[in-house]
């Protein structure tokens, strides 16, 4: 497989205000190196606050690392599966599809061409010309998912977005996602679900406190990760099975 992206000792820090004229640096990502291969689905696992989402933002080009390098070995587009991005409550579903699509980088004529598919996928044909502030949470989520599914980057970055809306739609959206992931598309998937990671990923990078703890085959990484988590929880007196 061809290597398309390489993170070399990447670190990202945030500046927090700490009193009068003073700031404190906090490193969300300390030292992360890994490669991304064309066509693979790479899983990122780790506890909350480990830095997984920040790494996705670096790969998407949203933020620039404060240390280390991001080397692109090929020309590609990478973006987050961003749901409901740019949605305005007072506008109609139709207007929001165009707005969100353009924010996601799609040309307007492309959105026009795929508009009917988007609305049909979201199952909102009846209410597409009503303002989305009249939609339920689930309806908005469906529309958001349907739009972002159409923005088709070369590298898709997914952050726990599996399953949106009500039960029936969750299955449909999860299937659509999985179909994308299983195709030849390059995907980086952040998930807390063992079954998704095991089923979808070719390789897993385990992030712990902003550093790569280990990387390798999904099953082996999950076992190691769960084992470590179990030890931690037992040490802190919590129920390890919780």
């Amino acid at each position, binding site marked *: 497989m061809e290597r398309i992206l390489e993170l070399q000792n990447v670190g990202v820090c*945030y500046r927090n205000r700490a009193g009068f004229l003073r700031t404190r640096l906090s490193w969300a990502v300390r030292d992360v190196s890994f490669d991304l291969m064309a066509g693979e689905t790479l899983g990122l696992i780790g506890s909350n606050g480990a830095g997984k989402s920040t790494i996705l933002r670096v790969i998407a080009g949203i933020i*620039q690392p404060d240390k280390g390098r991001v080397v692109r070995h090929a020309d590609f587009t990478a973006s987050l599966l961003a749901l409901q991005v740019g949605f305005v409550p007072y506008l109609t579903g139709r207007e929001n599809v165009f707005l969100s699509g353009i924010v996601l980088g799609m040309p307007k004529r492309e959105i026009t061409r795929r508009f009917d598919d988007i609305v049909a996928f979201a199952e909102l044909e009846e209410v597409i010309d009503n303002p989305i502030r009249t939609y339920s949470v689930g309806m908005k989520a469906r529309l958001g998912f349907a739009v972002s599914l159409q923005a088709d980057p070369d590298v898709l970055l997914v952050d726990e977005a599996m399953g949106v809306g009500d039960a029936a739609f969750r299955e449909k959206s999860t299937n659509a996602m999985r179909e994308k992931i299983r195709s030849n598309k390059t995907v980086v998937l952040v998930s807390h679900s063992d079954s998704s990671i095991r089923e979808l990923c070719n390789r897993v990078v385990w992030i712990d406190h902003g550093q790569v703890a280990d990387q390798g085959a999904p099953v082996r990484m999950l076992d190691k990760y769960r084992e470590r988590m179990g030890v931690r929880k037992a040490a802190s007196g919590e129920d390890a099975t919780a």
Partner: protein
Amino acid sequence: MRTLSNCVELIFHKAYAELRAEATRAYLGFLWWFVEPILYMAVFYVIFESGLKRGGAGFVPFLLCGLVTWKWFASTVAAGSGVLGVNAAVMQQVYLPKVVFPLVLVVVNTFKFSVALGFLLLFLVLDPRNTITASWLALPALIAIQLLLIASITILVAAIVPFVPDLKLLLDNFLMLMFFLSGIFFRFQEMSAGMQQVLHFNPMLLLIEAYRAALLDDKSPHWMPLLAVVGASILLLIGGMLMFRKYDRIYPKIVIR
């Protein structure tokens, strides 16, 4: 990478969405774009024409020329300081050139200004004391210069304030100071010579004087000082654009919602 045409589509679609959203929020809807500037002008008309009896004949058109153009400038620049914060959620989910956000603001406020300007011109046409003259032809050039000035300052303010949020408070008060020093209520020539020297560096005063010369006094504006405004605006614009280029992928980290 995003194409330029996508960026242009983005700017105009977001501007349209903001105007639409603003219109749908209120009962009167888009009528507010017309009602609001009329009310704004009516307030000053009532106070100065029938209330204070101040300034003599022609004071109201004189005042409105200053107020309408000042409002375009001040409301855009003031909103520029918070424009990245308002859009923090979007910029943390998707990469887009951040300079788009102040540009959307400029487009939205320019649209609103064009409605207000339309009413101002209508008022001037209907007012029997005024006549349309050839000097009105200077108007498009003056609007273009003011647009350039507003865009350059708004972009620069939007670029700097996320790094030093305290500047927002300073800016609001500075705009108030400028409001009184832009010759909206007084004639530039009535000021002391020393003050006139200082005020020559106020681009909005120069522009307001130029609008009045063209619209009210049938005179050609003084183009030389306005050329200096154009030059300074271009420099500021380059500075702002360079900052946005340099910190484009830093802003999503530092902007607070």
